[in-house]
């Protein structure tokens, strides 16, 4: 099983090809700089817009550096809607989802990786299929079910459909499989088996996978939109993405500086975390794709 260390081969597979065509490293860098510029542009432009005064938005040529700088938009955004509350709600929901996900993932992954029982393949397949049936596909019945459970318009409703995760179970099962039998036998002799084994030995050994999955789960559910749109109404329960959607309707295209400020604010927490912990984030998302 390959490890996650970044091995770049000494001769990139394309290097010779490029040299042959006459393309050298400088050209690659130029291309990459162009691509990076294009991908960065939307966000930077939004940031720039959010720092302008309303009248300065309608210039003939785009002004990338705002002059004068206006921090008032962010204050105004806060005044118009309780974005602080939305932030708190988002954090509560995201943590609530992750906590239970780890519980369900670990028990299921343990069963699939270390125990043998009838129907395990079929049952595991159910988990795999779930990966391809996100809540978007079954939004209508899910809504009706949550309604019947009396959970409409609660933060719980925002968490519940995500607590079982085929993806997480799959990843963790891979990870658990790598712990050799000897470990388990030794532990059993010491009287540590079952759940205790799972929580005191297996899970700690799977820490990298857990960290990777946690980051993916947090990013995914921080940015949930369709499901919260359908099951929540009141401001008390709104998350950041919902707050942004409502704010957009309130402003209805009249004041771009406010709209961009709201957008930047909603995306800022994750963005800042990402910039600080880039390596970890990138490693996590990369490791998710490797199948052994």
């Amino acid at each position, binding site marked *: 099983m390959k490890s996650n260390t970044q091995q770049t081969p000494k001769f990139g597979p394309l290097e010779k090809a490029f040299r042959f065509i006459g393309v050298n490293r400088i050209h690659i860098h130029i291309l990459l700089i162009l691509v990076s510029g294009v991908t960065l542009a939307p966000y930077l432009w939004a940031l720039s817009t959010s720092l302008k005064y309303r009248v300065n938005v*309608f210039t003939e040529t785009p002004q990338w550096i705002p002059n004068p700088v206006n921090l008032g938009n962010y204050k105004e955004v806060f005044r*118009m809607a309780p974005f602080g509350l939305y932030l708190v709600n988002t954090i509560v929901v995201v943590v609530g989802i992750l906590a239970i996900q780890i519980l369900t993932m670990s028990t299921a992954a343990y069963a699939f990786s270390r125990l043998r029982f009838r129907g395990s393949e079929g049952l595991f397949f159910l988990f795999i299929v779930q990966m391809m049936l996100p809540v978007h596909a079954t939004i209508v019945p899910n809504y009706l079910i949550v*309604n019947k459970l009396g959970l*409409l*318009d609660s933060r719980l409703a925002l968490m519940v459909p995500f607590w079982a995760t085929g993806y997480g179970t799959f990843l963790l099962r891979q990870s658990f499989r790598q712990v050799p039998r000897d470990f388990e036998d030794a532990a059993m002799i010491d009287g540590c088996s079952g759940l205790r084994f799972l929580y005191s030995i297996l899970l700690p050994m799977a820490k990298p996978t857990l960290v990777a999955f946690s980051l993916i789960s947090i990013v995914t559910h921080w940015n949930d939109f369709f499901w919260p749109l359908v099951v929540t*109404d*009141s*401001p008390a329960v709104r998350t950041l993405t919902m707050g942004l*959607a*409502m704010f957009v*309707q*309130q402003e*209805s*295209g*009249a004041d771009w500086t406010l709209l961009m400020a709201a957008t930047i604010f909603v995306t800022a927490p994750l963005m800042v975390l990402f910039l600080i912990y880039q390596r970890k984030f990138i490693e996590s998302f990369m490791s998710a794709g490797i199948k052994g």
Partner: protein
Amino acid sequence: MKRKSILSMALLLVVLFSAFPVNAQLVRLTYYYPVGVAGPLARVMNEYVEEFNALHPNIEVVPVYSGDYDPTMQKVQTAVRGGNPPDVFIVEISELPTLLAMNAIEPLDEFVTDEFLSDFFPAFLENGYSDGHIWGIPFQRSTPVFYWNKAHFEEAGLDPEKPPTTWDELREYAEKLTVRDPQTGEVIRWGVTISGGWNDWLFQCFVRQNGSKLIDYQERTAVFNSPEAVEALEFWVDLTQNLKVAPPHSTWASTPPDFVAGRTSMLYHSTGVLTFIMDSAQFDFGVGFLPGKVSYGAEVGGGNLFIGKGIPQERKEAAWKFIEFLTTPEMAARWSRDSGYVATRKSAYEVPEMVEYTNENPEYLVARDQLQYAAGKMMSPAFQRVREILKTALDEATAGRTTPKAALDQAQTQINRLLGQWLQQ
């Protein structure tokens, strides 16, 4: 000595405690409201709610801004389905049949008096009645009006004080006002914009101007492809496809900023954006009736106040107090000044601040004056689908994808199928 001080302490405590009213009776009301036009109206509404709450210490209205008309209706429906309807709410007036079908609202007959109702403009009351009962009280009401850029008129050699009053004049002026790039022929400035988003509402007005109508709720008829309607759509297509003086598509939210930015010289939009345009435009602009054909014509629009079904009596009464508060002549006048919506009551225009304000800003009287030519807005059950059918027909025709007749014929077929059971009764 000791007994005296204890007594006075006790007396002091009693006095102190009686100074704080015991609020065991606090009635909490959930209030869903939409904002359907540009402008900081959510803030204005919150101010009104705060004032009401201060005036009524035993009632607390909890305002829930719910987005545009569509999301608000969705939220109301969700709440009703969940068995927990909002106590008081505003939704778009054409939703009345749907609200009735869902059994979502209380009839308001027990609260209204003839005197109260007679002060409202009749055109606004039309959409509040069904089956002889009154269900909704007019609040944020409007008609579409015609905005024009006086500076552009002067540039084009037109009299800035004389807007077009007929379809033919509109076409003529639009041709003069449209500015095209000399090299590419691309339109830089549209002569006229018939706003998208609620273009179904605007279309209804054109049909009225041509002497016909689309749906009659009381009579239960729905004719979308009458010759008058086809002629109206052909006029639109003429503007967007043949003459290219109007954009084929736009959104309700984008066109007022477009007007303010000078990208269109004439605009069809709600009177509800009047305050926004007034605050933002850097040029002189005029507000007038929609140009007519057979006559002037319009259909009213906006939202009514409703009370949720099945809420306890004390909340119902508190909700009515709130509705009363919002619809006094003074509040109606104030709301009109703050937004541009028409004050729903005739006496509102006699409130001193209003008289003064409208003298300085006669634009705020235009929609009211147009009311004499305005009818109730079309409504029916399953109205959201009806809207979509009409809008699709309009959008396809103005883009030149189908002919007006074909578009409206197909719409008629779909409407017949959709409203079949309702129409036959």
